[in-house]
């Protein structure tokens, strides 16, 4: 199902995790060396600058190559060009599978990324150019969806995963928009429902060990789902969509959408804090900004400069006092960039106590009771 060698992907995952542990001092240099020897992933994954350079040259190469291809074959009809585009897209896919991933063992090298993007866009352009001029937009999205979905699953690509999510959402919204009379009421709620579904799907998916290789794609989906959930109910977006699609001055249920505009960001931040979910909290912070802009768009309560001064002062004070508070109260939340070091010492002490107390080294059986019993209830405190 995955184009890349999954044993190597596993080895990479283990190495990355072990590297983090080694960095924190949980693994000794000796152990880290052993991990490196035991788990080898002979992928070609260059430095990020080389990756950008490779992608850049690969793009020029492919564009010139498709031009040459068209000139050589001398296609002159629309249908001929479309067929050749699709054929060329398949050729690049073959190059990706057989050469880049197969023999050259590329993984995130810029070459494999670009080959994939180019193949997908050329195939989709070829297919869509054959549709009649007045085709519904919905049809384009429906054609693109299977390609995007299959490619993001097979090639573990985050950009295509994001494209798949947006494509699905657009299909749903365009379909709902075609329902007579009810569309106005259903549109925001279908967006929310879809986003919520995608969010829970991504959350559950990240916990599944069998889906470990898709972890980063699912994180992208989760992030987008949180954003689109808020966007579906944001008053400014609902109002603009109402004016655009239905020529409405005032949307129905305005109060609900105003409430939604302000409550959801706060809820995101609070839930993010309690569940230690950084993604949700950060998106919540972004949504607060969106809520403020939405409010200012409709109500000009004070001049911009005063708003900036007061807003800035409030932000500054909040951040400053939170930092002061966290400095004094170390615990579940911390201001330290790398707050794990103190915890490490604490664990060290606990372990020493434990071993001295029991007078024999803990066995595997000990481990479970130890980890679960003593520290299991440590969760989030109620400081916030």
């Amino acid at each position, binding site marked *: 199902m995955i184009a890349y060698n999954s044993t190597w992907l596993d080895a990479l995952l*283990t190495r990355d*995790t072990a590297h983090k542990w080694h960095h*924190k001092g*949980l693994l000794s240099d000796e*152990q880290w060396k052993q*991990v490196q020897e035991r788990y080898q992933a002979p992928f*070609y994954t*260059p*430095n990020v*600058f*080389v990756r950008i*350079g*490779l992608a*850049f*040259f*690969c793009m020029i*190469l492919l*564009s*010139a190559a498709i031009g040459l291809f068209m*000139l050589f074959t001398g296609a002159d009809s629309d249908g001929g060009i479309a067929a050749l585009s699709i054929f060329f897209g398949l050729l690049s896919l073959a190059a990706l599978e057989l050469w880049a991933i197969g023999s050259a063992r590329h993984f995130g*090298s810029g070459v494999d990324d670009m080959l994939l993007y180019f193949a997908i866009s050329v195939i989709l352009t070829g297919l869509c150019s054959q549709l009649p001029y007045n085709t519904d937009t919905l049809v384009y999205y429906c054609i693109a969806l299977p390609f995007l979905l299959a490619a993001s699953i097979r090639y573990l690509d985050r950009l295509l995963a994001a494209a798949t999510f947006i494509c699905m959402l657009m299909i749903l919204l365009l379909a709902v928009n075609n329902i007579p009379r009810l569309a106005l009421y259903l549109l925001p709620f279908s967006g929310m429902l879809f986003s919520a579904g995608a969010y829970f799907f991504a959350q559950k998916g*990240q916990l599944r*060990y069998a889906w470990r290789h898709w972890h980063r794609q699912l994180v992208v989906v989760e992030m987008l789902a949180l954003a689109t959930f808020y966007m579906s109910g944001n008053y400014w977006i609902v109002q603009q969509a109402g004016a655009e699609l239905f020529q409405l001055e005032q949307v129905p249920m305005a109060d609900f959408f105003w409430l939604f505009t302000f409550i959801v960001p706060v809820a995101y931040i609070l839930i993010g*804090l309690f569940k*230690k979910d*950084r993604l949700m*909290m*950060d998106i919540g*912070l972004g949504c607060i900004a969106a809520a403020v802009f939405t409010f200012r768009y409709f109500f000009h309560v004070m001049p911009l*400069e*005063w708003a*900036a*001064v*007061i*807003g*800035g*002062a409030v*932000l*500054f*004070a*909040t*951040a400053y006092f*939170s*930092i002061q508070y*966290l400095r004094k109260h170390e615990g*579940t*939340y*911390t201001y*330290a*960039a*790398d*707050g*794990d070091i103190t*915890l490490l010492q604490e*664990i060290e002490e606990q*372990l020493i106590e434990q071993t001295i107390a029991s007078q024999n080294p*803990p066995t595997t059986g*000990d481990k479970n009771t130890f*980890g679960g019993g003593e520290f299991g209830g*440590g969760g989030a405190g109620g400081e916030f």
Partner: protein
Amino acid sequence: MHPPILQNLLQQEIITPEDAAKIDIFEAKKPFSLHWELKSLLYLGVILLNIGLGFLIYQNIDSIGHIALIALIGVISAVCLIYAIRHRPPFSAGASESPPPYYDYILLLGCLTFLIMEGYWQFQYQIFGTRYGLATFIPMVLFFGLGYWLDNRGVLSLGITALASWVGITVTPQELLSKNDFNSATIVQTGVLLAALLTLVPFVSERLNFKKHFSLTYLNFAVHIGMISCLAGMMALDLEVLYFPLLCGAVGFYLWYARTRGSFYFLTVAVVYGYIGITYMLITHTDSLNLDFMFYLLYFVLSCTGVIFFLINYKRFIKNDAP
């Protein structure tokens, strides 16, 4: 996601059950760092506050008066710089140990407000008159001095920028006043010379073993100023005879640097600039031959294939033991 990995490492007998227990507790009790979020909020707050206050002052400038304003900005700048100097890390020829939090930002704020104050002075009272060179020379000296003394790369970058504008301004005004147009030849020549100078500095400081960690800052400015000047010389001045060999030399130099120091950044940058130069030469010099469009497409296909293979295999070519 970590338990299966831990299990796996246990089975491979790389770690002992004791280590596994340690890691388990660690993963369960990891504190949640709000560092990034709170810091962003703090800076966002400061920026908003500054924008708002700036606007307010701008609107009420009649009632406040210029002197008071300049004094205020000057005081801010002085306070920041004095703080930075008093809390400076002990001086060393190498990299200093990390200073307290906010230190970098206070220092940068001091430097930027100094620039604003100077600009205000010049704008309102023309204290430098038309001697613009002096106006950039003073901050240049200040920033270079502070950058080296307080060991700060951000301030050093400001200093290099001031140096570039000082050099640029010193060579242009006469031309500008006499012919009323920018003589770009002087600017391009200055750019090349400045880049050469900036490239030289890291090697001298490495020889003297003094502030070696500033090398990247210098070279980053040097590579872009130098290559863009060469390309400008080729394209705008039509002096390919002079600037194309210069560009080739610069590309060769940075490839050599990338190889010996294991720097992928300079490798990619040099390859991209070199490719642009060579492609430009090819296109302008085959213009009169009326070649088929296909020739150019073929050129792109073949050259890009070559570059891609070069970049891929350069990994084996680059020295791994480089620092």
